[in-house]
């Protein structure tokens, strides 16, 4: 047995009007200061106020939110006592909003205790709306909460099915302000979700269609969205694809690319989407040697190769690298500008952190410690995996 959990998703141009019908009295918006400055948060606030809400804004979320920030946000929530938590932003504010919601309802918990096994008993005090502004992490549709332990410089993959937001408002106009680099990075994160959700050991019939279609849309529309931010058709398909990919992987899992990406992000502050986009082809090649089937299936469905087996799987890896090049993203860690010397000083930690990342649970080919070390080296050098 397994589960399939989804928020109510309101999508398309004008989806923001769904906030006009929200019923409640006090809404806590969780976001970051950049989005406040861009005016996106004001759009949400204005609608909530017209709907009769008293609104408070917590905008102290930083990229790669940490434990201290969500504890601070939870304290704000306990003082304000909202009946709706409204997350506005990319993955960082949305994950922080989920964590703040959990800690508001469960002040007895430490953030690191949020796990998929222990019931949380949410929705006694509040429910959650998620308004994504990137296309994207898919956090608006997932149970995942990624927090950074600043002391250990390690990302913690937390989550619980109850933390899937009640409502996800997937309005492409909220993502239209993304500059090209952010569009590219977040688009690659969505692609990694789609491909890993389809190919991981925990894949399911329910998630497969979402993951395949998300991958299909991303390969088709990400270059256009990067090239022209005003291309609303591309923006809308990318925004929908990111939510589909999030819904897909949340109900299956991610895999080694995310383990590696989390480690790289925590150590070197490489944008998460850029990091997983770099790692994804190497992890596909690593799996291709022993467990290529699902990758080859996906390559065939997407029209990249009908060869099947390892050849088909490697064609998928090649397609990901081609996409990275088309949108101007690096295909290896060296291309990010990170020096080899700096990289090697952290290599042991990268491997240790990735080795025990929760995304490793569903790897179809689980690397040994030495193989993982090799993967990180190949990902730095840009060498196709041959072991």
């Amino acid at each position, binding site marked *: *047995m*397994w*589960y399939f959990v989804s928020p109510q998703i309101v999508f398309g141009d004008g989806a923001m009007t769904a906030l006009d019908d929200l019923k409640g009295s006090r809404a806590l918006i969780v976001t970051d200061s950049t989005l406040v400055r861009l005016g996106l948060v004001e759009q949400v606030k204005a609608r909530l106020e017209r709907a009769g809400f008293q609104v408070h804004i917590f905008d102290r979320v930083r990229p790669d939110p940490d434990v201290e920030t969500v504890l601070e946000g939870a304290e704000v929530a306990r003082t304000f006592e909202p009946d709706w938590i409204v997350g506005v932003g990319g993955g960082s504010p949305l994950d922080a909003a989920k964590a703040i919601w959990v800690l508001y309802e469960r002040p007895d918990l*430490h953030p*690191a*205790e949020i*796990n*998929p*096994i*222990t019931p949380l008993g949410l929705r006694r005090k509040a429910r959650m709306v998620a308004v994504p502004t990137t296309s994207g992490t898919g956090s608006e549709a997932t149970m995942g909460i990624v927090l950074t332990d600043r002391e250990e410089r390690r990302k*913690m993959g*937390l989550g619980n099915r109850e933390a899937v937001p009640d409502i996800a408002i997937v309005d492409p106009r909220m993502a239209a302000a993304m500059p090209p680099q952010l569009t590219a990075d977040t688009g690659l994160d969505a692609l990694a979700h789609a491909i890993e959700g389809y190919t991981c*050991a*925990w894949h399911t019939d329910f998630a497969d269609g979402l993951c395949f279609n998300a991958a299909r849309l991303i390969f088709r529309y990400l270059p256009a969205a990067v090239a022209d931010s005003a291309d609303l058709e591309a923006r809308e398909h990318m925004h929908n694809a990111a939510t589909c990919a999030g819904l897909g992987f949340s109900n299956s899992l991610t895999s080694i690319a995310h383990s590696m990406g989390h480690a790289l992000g925590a150590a070197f502050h490489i944008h998460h989407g850029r990091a997983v986009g770099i790692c994804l082809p190497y992890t596909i090649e690593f799996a291709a040697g022993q467990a290529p089937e699902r990758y080859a299936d996906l390559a065939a469905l997407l029209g990249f190769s009908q060869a099947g087996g390892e050849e088909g799987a490697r064609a998928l890896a090649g397609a990901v690298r081609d996409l990275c090049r088309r949108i101007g993203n690096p295909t290896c860690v060296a291309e990010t500008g990170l020096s080899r010397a700096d990289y090697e000083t952290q290599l042991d930690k990268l491997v240790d952190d990735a*080795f*025990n*990342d*929760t995304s*490793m*649970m569903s790897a179809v080919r*689980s690397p*040994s*410690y030495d193989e993982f070390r090799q993967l990180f080296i190949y990902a730095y050098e840009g060498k196709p995996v041959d072991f």
Partner: protein
Amino acid sequence: MAFKFPSDEWIKELANQLNANQAYERAAKDWEGDFIFVVEPDEAYDKTAYLFLGLYHGKCTGAAMLSGEGEREAEFILRAPYTSWRNVIEGKLDPIQGMMTRKLQVKGNMMKIMRYPKAAKEIVACCALVPTEFVA
């Protein structure tokens, strides 16, 4: 030679496999916490068995079949019906998924377990290396 599951010999052989396994040693190099696995009766098995596994910094420090749950202290207690344990050992039930679907009931600090998923996978991989004769 096959070892009957559940038995004192089986859990001791699992300990041997773990202590010979470099992947487990690396994945669990910081782990501290002992386990009691409780095999509960079901249609296939009519007894209750208690298997102790001591784990510290990548090594198994002790393994034994107990006469009862209170015979040794352990930070973690995992309980499940016999058939669920058989499915874990045979690779048909992922232990983390088992915990998430409550097929395996966990008592202990979940925060700690979730930080070591690779170690959990290696323990299951070592279970598969123990030549096992299921009693039912």
